[in-house]
């Protein structure tokens, strides 16, 4: 069956623009899901008919996609998962209880016909997390959070809607210029509308405020293999501060953000970030840079920014950092609260 599908036409399908379009069309989408969507469309547009072809196609599109954006970590969680899923299912046709001939087509059909469902499912995950995770917020609690994570926002909103919980929020807001800020401001506005007192603070005020805080909840761009997270710049320092003050530090992330990556330190991420930019006075930009750096701390849940840049390095305000697992009390996913060690188990299970 593998005969006629030509690989040449493939480039005609622009995976990158598809991806961007999907993201733009639905601001609720996260990067990994958008990436999966785009890949499904790619498959739909192609005429591949064998496993090998499909995987090959996927690989090329994934590579193109990753190359197109500065911070592919979150995105790669989606593409990797998708790829792994295909491999697992395609290699085990028996598990489908289908005839051996049908399996590939069945899967393809399933993928194509249910593409939208993935999106639904992903959004559902967020709702699930929100409804489940809100139990973490106890009556009278003060919650510290940051950034423009939509899951966190959903969780807080859900908690706010519940009449039985009264709580306060300290929100570390990104500066208004950043792409994140809309989400953050929106969340703050919503919470306030629900009579939840919100204090918006600058990231530099985190340590100052921590004494009043009962728990920290943050979002994540990717959850890595050791149970740590990649998240917007500033999360790591929040984690450190929370740990030093003995405050529980929870991460909220859908499980499709689990990514096969094992960073050892901040500088062991597979992306290039222009955060540390050493300069001397001569450099005219010295001044600007300091301003930028400030932004850096405030920005960055990358899963929502559709960065048009193709630049090699990540600009400071989109930068991310790595929060190691020992700072994390628990990861709230749509399927429960995982300890960081459980993340590793989940990833091991799909990759080995």
């Amino acid at each position, binding site marked *: 069956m593998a005969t006629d599908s030509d690989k040449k036409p493939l480039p005609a399908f622009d995976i990158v623009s598809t991806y961007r379009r999907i993201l733009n069309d639905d601001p609720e989408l996260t990067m990994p899901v958008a990436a999966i969507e785009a890949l499904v469309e790619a498959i739909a547009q192609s005429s591949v008919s064998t496993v090998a072809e499909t995987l090959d196609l996927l690989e090329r599109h994934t590579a193109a996609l990753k190359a197109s954006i500065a911070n592919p970590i979150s995105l790669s969680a989606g593409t990797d998962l998708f790829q792994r899923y295909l491999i697992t299912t395609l290699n085990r046709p028996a598990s489908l209880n289908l005839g051996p001939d049908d399996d590939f087509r069945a899967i393809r059909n*399933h993928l194509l016909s249910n593409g939208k469902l993935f999106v639904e499912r992903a959004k559902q995950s967020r709702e699930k997390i929100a409804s489940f995770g809100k139990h973490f917020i106890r009556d009278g609690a003060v919650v510290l959070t940051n950034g423009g994570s939509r899951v966190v926002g959903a969780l807080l909103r859900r908690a706010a809607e519940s009449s039985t919980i009264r709580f306060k929020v300290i929100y570390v807001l990104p500066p208004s210029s950043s792409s994140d800020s809309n989400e953050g401001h929106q969340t703050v506005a919503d919470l306030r509308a629900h009579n939840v007192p919100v204090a918006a603070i600058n990231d530099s005020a985190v340590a100052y405020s921590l004494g009043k805080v009962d728990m920290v909840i943050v979002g994540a761009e990717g959850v890595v293999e050791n149970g740590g997270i990649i998240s917007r710049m500033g999360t790591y320092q929040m984690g450190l501060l929370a740990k030093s003050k003995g405050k529980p530090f929870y991460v909220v992330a859908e499980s499709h953000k689990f990514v096969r990556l094992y960073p050892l330190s901040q500088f062991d991420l597979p992306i290039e970030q222009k955060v540390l930019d050493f300069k001397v006075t001569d450099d005219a930009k010295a001044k600007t840079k300091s301003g930028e750096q400030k932004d850096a701390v405030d920005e960055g849940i990358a899963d929502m920014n559709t960065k048009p840049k193709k630049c090699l390095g990540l600009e400071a305000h989109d930068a991310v950092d790595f929060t190691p697992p020992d700072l994390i009390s628990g990861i709230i996913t749509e399927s429960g609260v995982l300890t960081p060690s459980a993340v590793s188990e989940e990833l091991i299970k799909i990759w080995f």
Partner: protein
Amino acid sequence: MAQSTTIQAPGLSSYLKSLKTTPVDPSVEHLISLLKRRQIRNSRPCAIATTALLLRVVGEFKGRDAAKLVERIRQVGRRLTSAQPREVVVGNIVRRVLGLVREVVDDQADGQTPTGSEPGHSTPHAHHDSLHRPAFASSMSTFSPLRHAGAEPSHIGVSADNMSDSGELSRRPALLTSHTSYAPAAVAGLVVNSLFGLFSQPADTPSATSTPTGQASPTGKSTLTALNLERLADLSKSQPNLDLKGEVMEGIRELQDELETSDKQIAEVALEHIHANEIILTHTASTTVQKFLLFAARKRKFTVVHAETYPHDHAATHGILLTGKKRESRPGEDDEDDKWKPLTDAGIQVYVIPDSHVFAIMSRVNKVILATHTVLANGGLVAAAGAHMIAKAAKEHQTPVVVLSGVYKLSPVYPFDIDELIEHGDAGSVVPYEDGEFVDKVDVEAPLYDYVPADLVDLYITNLGGHAPSYLYRIVADHYRSEDITL
């Protein structure tokens, strides 16, 4: 068999005796009242009583419908847990028994031809998350035991609305009304991955617990994924030959054995953890700990520093050190195997210290061994008051903290609200009642338990061996079915 371990509470042994002659329903009531009046308390007696009762319940159960049996056990379990929500172990046992039923059914289903791939067979809403990953289940209960306290028979308490959107509650009606479908856990060697949940069809009933990987497609078309391995067995029909009751009862008896032998099993690894001339700090009159130390004492000489756990457990502590028995036990009620000599007779130097000395003495201690009341899925534990300061002081001195716990104390409950789990005792034990004036004017607090967060614990030793606190989620997942986390 169970009687043999009736150490702590007279209430337990009399209950077990009465259980033989009393019909089931009064027995349930009886246990509920004993629990409420705290005549049976502490993990082990509660576990023993619950197991014995459930054995009866299953034994008396009429019919072969597994779903009904599950519902029956659940119903008893719910009443028991709400009678004394802080005895988490009661709920653990109920869940274990429920798991047994499901396992029996699953095993049976496995042996048959997969009939279940025709999805039309059962009503769509019955296909809930059957392939749900235990791993995830482990840590995800929204169940908060105390919330049930207010409304015993039904869940419609204050919290019902909170909980319902978690999907756990909303799922229950499905269980009640339909033939529950069971899926073999991790069937046929194919590991179903929850991370793939995204690719499966959306659940009909949004279920918080699940990443419903193996859903039967409601449309009846070919099911979506290779992951769909479940055989949707309509139990009452498809397993006519199943000796459900017998197998479940067999399982419960094994559970009873486990309860009985867990101390011994834990003790048997003692030599791996205690070396010669160590100085060990412990607290409370825990049988588990005493047996552990005694076992080590057979071969090694070491020193024990014992915090007396005033005011709630000191009498028993002193008693156990003097005589090897707790105060409540009466001669004649003890079977052979609970007779053990006090540690001191084994040649172990024991130093009793008041609880306030913990920090002062910690710099000389090599290892801290804690008894526990309940272990929670996140690796934290609930133990006698004072445990937290001991563990914390140990941490400050870089002294390893070892927690001994039977697996039956491991609870799938996620501690959202720790304070709910802490029982407060009688102020009279803190300030004698004669001092009524004092009690009137001063707010006397007597917490019975402490919550010890996981990061203060270095090692758990259960009857299955030693585990890092970070691995407990897996042990929990292995012992409880996700469906049962919310009773």
